[in-house]
């Protein structure tokens, strides 16, 4: 399946832009799933780390050197460091307080990027980010093939690492914390340090997604910190399913294609259809929605299963 995905830019050269976008959003969703799906930490501000990765990578390319891989590492490190600091804010409180705290952190960072215009370009964004060739060989061309492969490869690598993580003893202790924090503590799991570590990892992965966006579009603007990014990525997880790594990828594909398709037929009102789709999805349930043949079967039978 991954081989097929990696072949896509070659098969559909005219759609490399959207393939690149999907890969980036999927990576972002994967990052959020690590804390939301596997650890039970709700966040409405994960764009903070996405944006941090984007600006760090863009600034690195502009001020230090244009190598994309080093820039990616810088983006990951910066977002990870920010995540480590912010993890202190999510250790206590309820889901509602976490929603507010994460939302607040996202807003603070957006305003910082806006205010520090000598560094970030403020509301105009950071323009003129020129990337060097990948591995010194592959130029980021206009067709976007290199960009799509680059993003997809990073997605694949992070996916594989995340897969190992969630199936490891570490991942199992995260699920234990999600299911029952009191008992997790009572069997000797250092809950706070686990939360800090996974929050840092999830922030770093979101930073990778942000860095990819900045590098492949040659641009970083305040949009990367916007609330709608945090909300979109949560929608993607709801569409694809939380606590299941392919959920983020599947959700990203469905969400992006739907957005692309709907906005091409109704540029102004496409969010209406996305909204309608969400309402139906949540009320009917994902399982039933993708199995049309169960729609007219006995509800009580299907409902109790």
């Amino acid at each position, binding site marked *: 399946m991954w081989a097929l995905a990696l072949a896509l830019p070659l098969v559909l050269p005219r759609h490399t832009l959207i393939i690149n976008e999907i890969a980036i959003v999927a990576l972002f969703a994967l990052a959020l799933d690590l804390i939301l799906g596997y650890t039970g930490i709700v966040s409405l501000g994960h764009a903070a780390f996405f944006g941090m990765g984007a600006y760090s990578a863009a600034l690195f390319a502009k001020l230090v050197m244009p190598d994309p891989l080093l820039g990616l590492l810088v983006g990951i490190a910066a977002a990870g460091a920010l995540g480590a600091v912010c993890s202190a804010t999510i250790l206590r409180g309820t889901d509602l307080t976490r929603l507010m705290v994460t939302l607040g952190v996202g807003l603070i960072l957006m305003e910082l990027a806006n205010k520090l215009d000598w560094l970030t370009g403020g509301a105009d964004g950071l323009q003129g980010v020129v990337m060097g060739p990948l591995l010194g060989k592959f130029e980021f061309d206009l067709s976007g093939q290199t960009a799509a492969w680059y993003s997809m490869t990073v997605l694949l690598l992070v996916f594989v690492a995340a897969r*190992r*993580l969630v*199936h*490891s*003893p*570490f*991942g*199992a*202790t995260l*699920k*234990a914390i*999600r*299911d*029952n924090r*009191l*008992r997790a*503590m*009572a*069997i*000797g*799991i*250092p*809950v706070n340090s686990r939360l800090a570590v996974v929050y840092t990892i999830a922030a770093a992965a979101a930073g990778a997604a942000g860095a990819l966006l900045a590098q492949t579009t040659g641009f970083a603007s305040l949009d990367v910190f916007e609330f709608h990014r945090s909300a979109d990525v949560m929608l993607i997880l709801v569409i694809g399913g939380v606590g299941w790594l392919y959920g983020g990828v599947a959700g990203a594909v469905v969400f992006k294609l739907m957005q692309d398709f709907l906005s091409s037929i109704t540029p102004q009102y496409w969010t209406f259809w996305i909204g309608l789709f969400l309402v139906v999805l949540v009320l009917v349930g994902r399982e039933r929605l993708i199995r049309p043949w169960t729609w007219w079967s006995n509800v009580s039978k299907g409902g109790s299963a």
Partner: protein
Amino acid sequence: MNTPGTTAHDTVLSAQGLVMRFGGITATNNVTLDLKRGARHALIGPNGAGKTTLINLLTGVLQPTAGRVVLEGQDITTLAPHQRVRRGMVRTFQINQLFDTLTPLETLAMVVAQQQDLGGSWWQALGSSTRVTARCEQLLEQFHLTSVMSQETRVLAYGKRRLLEIAIALACEPRVLLLDEPVAGVPAGEREELLQTVAALPADVSILLIEHDMDLVFSFSRSMTVLVNGTVLTEGSPEKIANDSRVKAVYLGHGDEINDAMEGLAHG
């Protein structure tokens, strides 16, 4: 169970002068309690006697206003709950505290891996360590969970969930195990399996049992402490407690229950 020649080393867990005040209320008032190695010690007392507060003080959920908790000769009063678990003090809960979306196998593998210091490793799979899987098999067998090991915990029968509750605690390899009403709410049909399993817990684990069920208390324990209004009323052998008029007074209306249980002990 004092035998000639016992020394301080035979005391595994010791609560020394514990005091806990919530505002103006004193929930625990100068409680001192020693648990001997391999003990089967019951903590009884009417509702509101402060049993739960005492458990929370021992496990570190609450910090005492005064007093010390000593485990294996080391003062652990200031340690966090998970650090006390690492040193061998583990509890079960009166109301099941399980991991609903994990199966019993996953749950125990997770606990055993954590116990074997693998909890922080993230690259190899949970089941890849043979030490972990071997211990899991043992525990599943011991707690009659093998037949349901691959079902999600939330769909298990209550008795099985109760067994898993204790299995999780034992998977932490405790030196001291605090059992908080292990048979509470278990239907009659599933009770026997649970009682046998509790009776067959490893002899080298020191157990403090908090229980209302007098049958279990008197059949299981070899020594007892009676807690009333946050203070130790008396302690001693089951025979001594059962014949203590003050205890009977405290359990007014339940005195018959104790006598019945004693009767059973004498004839059984």
